[in-house]
C-alpha cells in the first residue's frame, strides 16, 4: 500500500499536471486528496489476484473503417478560435530554454 500523501507529492503532481498551484491550494489538496485516497483504501485492500483489469466496458477492439475521403473541419474556422496564429499555424511562446 502506498504511503501517506505528502505536501511534496502534491507539489510534484501539480508540476506533472502543468497546474501552477498556490501554497494554499497545495495545502488544501494535500488534505483533500489524502481523504479521498484514504476512502479508496477499501479498494486497495481487495484481493484481486488473477482478476484482469477492465479498461473499457465493451468487447470492441481495432475499429476500422473504409478509407473514404470526407471533408474535415474548416481550417479558417478552427484557426479563428486560437489564442494566437501566424501564417496559418498555431503560435506558441518559445519552447527551448536558450535566449531568443
Amino acid at each position, binding site marked *: *500500500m*502506498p504511503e501517506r*500523501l505528502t505536501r511534496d*507529492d*502534491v507539489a510534484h*503532481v*501539480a508540476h*506533472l*499536471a*502543468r*497546474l*501552477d*498551484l498556490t501554497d494554499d*491550494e497545495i495545502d488544501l*489538496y494535500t488534505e*483533500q*486528496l489524502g*481523504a*479521498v*485516497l484514504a*476512502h*479508496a*483504501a*477499501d*479498494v*486497495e485492500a*481487495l484481493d*484481486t489476484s488473477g*482478476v*484482469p*483489469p*477492465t*479498461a*473499457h*466496458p*465493451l468487447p*470492441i477492439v481495432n*475499429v476500422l*473503417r473504409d478509407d473514404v475521403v470526407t471533408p474535415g*473541419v*474548416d481550417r479558417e*474556422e*478552427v484557426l*479563428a*478560435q*486560437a*489564442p*494566437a496564429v501566424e501564417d496559418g499555424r*498555431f503560435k*506558441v*511562446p*518559445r*519552447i527551448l*530554454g536558450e535566449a531568443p
Partner: protein
Amino acid sequence: MTATEIADAVRAGTTTARQVVEEHLAAIAARDPELHAFNLVTGDEARAAADAVDLAVANGQDPGPLAGVPVALKDNMCTRGIPTTCGSKILDGWLPPYDATVVQRIAAAGGVIVGKTNLDEFAMGSSTENSAFGPTRNPHDITRVPGGSSGGSAASVAAGFAPLAIGSDTGGSIRQPASLCGVVGMKPTYGLVSRYGLVAFASSLDQIGPFSTTVEDAATLLEVIAGHDSRDSTSLAQPAPPVRQEVTKGIEGLRVGVVRELLTGCEPDVAARLHEAADALSAAGAKVDDATVPAAVYGVSAYYLIAPAEASSNLARYDGVRYGLRVDGADITAMYGATRAAGFGAEVKRRIMLGTYALSAGYYDAYYGQAQRTRTLIIRDFDAAYENFDVLLSPTSPTTAFEFGAKADPLTMYLSDVCTIPCNLSGQPAISVPFGTDGAGLPVGVQVMAPALGEQVLFRVAAAVQRAAP
C-alpha cells in the same frame, strides 16, 4: 404537453412549431433569471429551426418524431458557431467548428434546440455548484441544488422550459439530477449513443442520454439519438433496439431484484419509496426479490480513481494553444501552468491532481490498476445478479435535493453518486423515474438497471414504475 403530444400536434398541423417554441421561450424568459438552468438561450436559432419544421409540414413532408419539440442541450456538447463552455472559464467564448452527432440527429428528427444548459465544470460534480457561471437552482425549492452535473438540463425539464433535454452521465450525472428534480433521466448502454462532439471527461464511462417528464418521451428521444456513428470508435455497430413500443407492455412474470447494497445509507423516506415501488411492481405481476451485487460497495472508491485518471489525460488538451483561454508566460511551460491555473475551477483542479497522482510512477498499479481490477469484480457481480433477475432496482440518490453548500467537503459530495456509479463502471443502462416525495415534498427517484443492451426490458419496467407512482 409532453414531447410526444407536441410532435403529434405539429405533424397533424393542429399547432405550429413556431407557436410551441414561442411558448417555451416565454417560460424561459419568465423564470430562468431565477433558476439559471441555461448558460445560453438560442432564441433566434430556435425560431429558425421551428419555421423550417412548419415549412416542411406545410409542404406535406414529415419533419420527424421530434417535430417542433423544444430540446435543452447540456453545454458540454458542441454546437457549430454557438458557444460551448462546459461551465468553465477555460472555454468561455469558444465557438466549436462542428456539431455533435446528437445535435445533428435531433435537428434531423425535427427537434428544436432552445439553449445550452448549465453544468458542473466539465461535468465534474453532483450539484451544479461547480459551474464557473454560478449554480442552477432546483425548481421545486430554489434554496436547494438541482443535482449534477446535468443540473441545468434536469431543471429545464422540471420547470417546463423544454419537454426534453440532453445530458451526459459519467457517474450519475443524468440520473441523480433527474431524481432531485422529479423528472425522468436515462443513461443508455455504453456505446449506444455516439459521443462525437461530447467534450470528454472520462472516456470509458461517459455516455449521453435523455431527460423528459415521461418514460415514453425518454424512449422517443433515445430512439432519435441512438445508433452507430463511424465518428465515435466506441460506438456499437449493431442497430439500437426499438424502445418506444415497450412502454405500453405489461411486466407479468419479469424478475425484479432490489439491490441490498445500494439501500445502505439512504434516507428513510427514500428507502420507503423504493420499497413502495417494488411492491407496486409486484402487484403489477412482477416477481420481486432481494438481490445482491456485493462489489457495488467498492464503486465510489474505484470510480474516484478511474474517472479522475481519465480526466487528467483528457483535460491535458486545455493548454492555451489551439482554443480557449491563454495566459501568457515566459516560455511554453510557464504558459501552460498559468493558463490552466487561471482557467480551471477548484473541483476540476482537484480531479486532475487526483488522477495525475493515481497514474504517476510508483502508484499506477496500486491505484489505477487496482481500480480497474475492481471494475471487473463489479461487472462479474452484476452478471451473476442478472442470471436471476431481468432488471435490478435501487434508489437513484441516497438523499433528496440538498441545500446549497451542504456538501462542501469533496468526499461527502462524491458519496452522492453511490447508487449511480456502479452502472457507469459496468457500462450497463439505467434510468431514474420519479416516485413520490419525501416528508418535505421533495422528489424521490427510483433507479431501474438492466444488462448491457437491455434497454427494452428497462423501458418496460420504467414505464410500470411511472404508472404506479403516487
